[in-house]
C-alpha cells in the first residue's frame, strides 16, 4: 500500500471489532492495561499499534 499507511474508518472499525472479539473469547492481551471492557482494550492496542491484524486491499 504505497503512500497510505492510514487506515480508513471502516478498516479501523473492523480491526478493533475483530480484536475485541478475540480478547472477549480469551485471546492473550498484548499490552499492560487496567481496562476491563474488551473494546476499550482493543482500542488501546490499536492506538499503540500492536494489534497483529492488517487489511488486505485490492490492487
Amino acid at each position, binding site marked *: 500500500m504505497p503512500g497510505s499507511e492510514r487506515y480508513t474508518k471502516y478498516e479501523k*472499525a473492523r480491526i478493533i471489532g475483530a480484536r475485541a472479539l478475540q480478547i472477549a473469547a480469551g485471546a492473550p492481551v498484548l499490552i499492560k492495561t487496567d481496562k476491563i471492557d474488551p473494546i476499550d482494550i482493543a482500542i488501546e492496542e490499536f492506538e499503540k499499534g500492536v494489534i497483529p491484524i492488517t*487489511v488486505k486491499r485490492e490492487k
Partner: protein
Amino acid sequence: MVSEEREKIVRDLISSGVERAIAKEIARDFRVTELSVGRDALSAAGIADEYAEDILCMLGIEVAGEVKPCDIEIQVNGTPLPEKLKSELKSKLRVVRRMLTRDKLNSILKRVIAEYEDARVDPREAVGVVAAQSIGEPGTQMTLRTFHYAGVGAIYITLGLPRIIEIVDARKKPSTPAMKVRLQPEYASDRHKAEILAMEIEETHIKDIGKVESSADDMCILLSLNNRELEKRRITKEEVEEKIKSLDMPVDIKEDKIKIYTKNNSYHELLRLEERISNMLVKGIEGIKRAIVRKGPEGEYMLYTEGSALKKVAKIEGVDFNRTTTNNIAEIAEVLGIEAARNAIIDEMMSTLEEQGLDVDARHVTLIADAMTVDGEVKQIGRHGLAGEKTSVLSRAAFEVTVDNLLEAAIHGEVDELKGVTENVIVGQPIRLGTGAVELVAKNYGELMR
C-alpha cells in the same frame, strides 16, 4: 545585457507575480551582473516595495527570516493536494507572505493537508446511497406534485420537483424548453441591436403579420398584411410574397391584398390551404416561440427564449455560441457531446435545487450526472436506464418479474458474482461495502514454516 538574459528575467519576474509591463521595465533598467543591489537601490530606482522584495529574492539576496515566493512555490508543490487547491493556496499565501515565517508556513500547510484528508471520502463508503439520500431528503421539502413556475419576464420555466424528475428521467424534451442566448460584445451592449437579433430568432408565422381569410365565393384565400407588424418584425412585403409563391399555387398579388387560389376548387382543399398559409414560417427559427431581451447577471444584454433550437441558433450572427445554453439536456448531448450533457445535468439540478433554497453538495449531483452519462449516452435513473441494466441476476429478479428473470438467466447459464448489495442480502452474506468489504489478515504469520 544580452537580450536572451533579459527575456529570462522578464519570464522569471512574471512567474513570481510581477506584472508584465513592470517586469519589462525592471529588466531594462537593471544590471543583473551587479548582485550587490539592496532594497534601497531598488526603491531609489523607483520600484515599488512589493516588487523590490521579489526581485531581491530572485537575485538570491536573503532577507532574514522571511518567506520568499519561491519557498511558497516549492513547499506547496510538495504537498499531496490536488492542483486546483494548490494554486488557490499559493495565491492566498502570496497575499499574506509578509506575515509568514517558515514555521508558520509549515503549520499552515499541515493544517490544510489535514483538512483535505479529512474531507476526502473513505474508500468503500456507500457514496451512491449517500447521494440518493442527500437529494431525496431535500426533495421531500419541495412542494410535492405541484408544478412550480418562475419565469424571466413572460417566459415560464418548469422548476422544483417536476423539473428534477424531468432531469433524472432523461426526457427527450423538457416540458418547457428554454435557452439563454448570450451575444457578441457589440450586440450585448446595445439594446436595440439585441432586439433586432431577437426578432431574427423568434419564429414569425403568416398569421402573426396579417389576416388570413378564406373566401368561399371565389374559392381563394385572402391575405391582408399588417404593415405595422411587418415593420416591427423587419419583414418586407417582397419576402412574404416570395414565401407565398413558393407554395406553387395560383397567386394574385394586389396593392394591399394577396389572393391565393385553390387548384381543384374543393372546400376541403381550401380549408387545408388556409391552415397551411396561417402557419407558414416567414422568419425566425422553428421552435423558438418567443425571444426576450433582458439584462443578464453579467450586466450585458442577452436573450431568453421560449423553445430551444441550439444548432440553429449557433448559425445566427451576433450570437456568442460558447456562452449559450439550453435546458434541453438531450439536445446538448446531441449538439455538444456527452461531457457537455454531464455538465448540463449538474448545472440544471444545482440551479433548480438552489432556486428552491436547498443546499445540496455539488458532489452528490456530480455523482448522479456521472452515473447517468458514463456509457456515452444520457440514461435515465430507473428501470429503463441505470437500474434496469444491472448485471446481477438475483438483484434483477428481486426487482421485477422474478420467475421470468431467473428462467431466462438459467437458460443462458448466467453467473452471479455476488458483488452488489441486493445479491448479498438475498444470499445472507455481509454486503461488500463499508466494513463488509474489509478483508482482515492476521499479521506476522504465514510464509514458509520449515
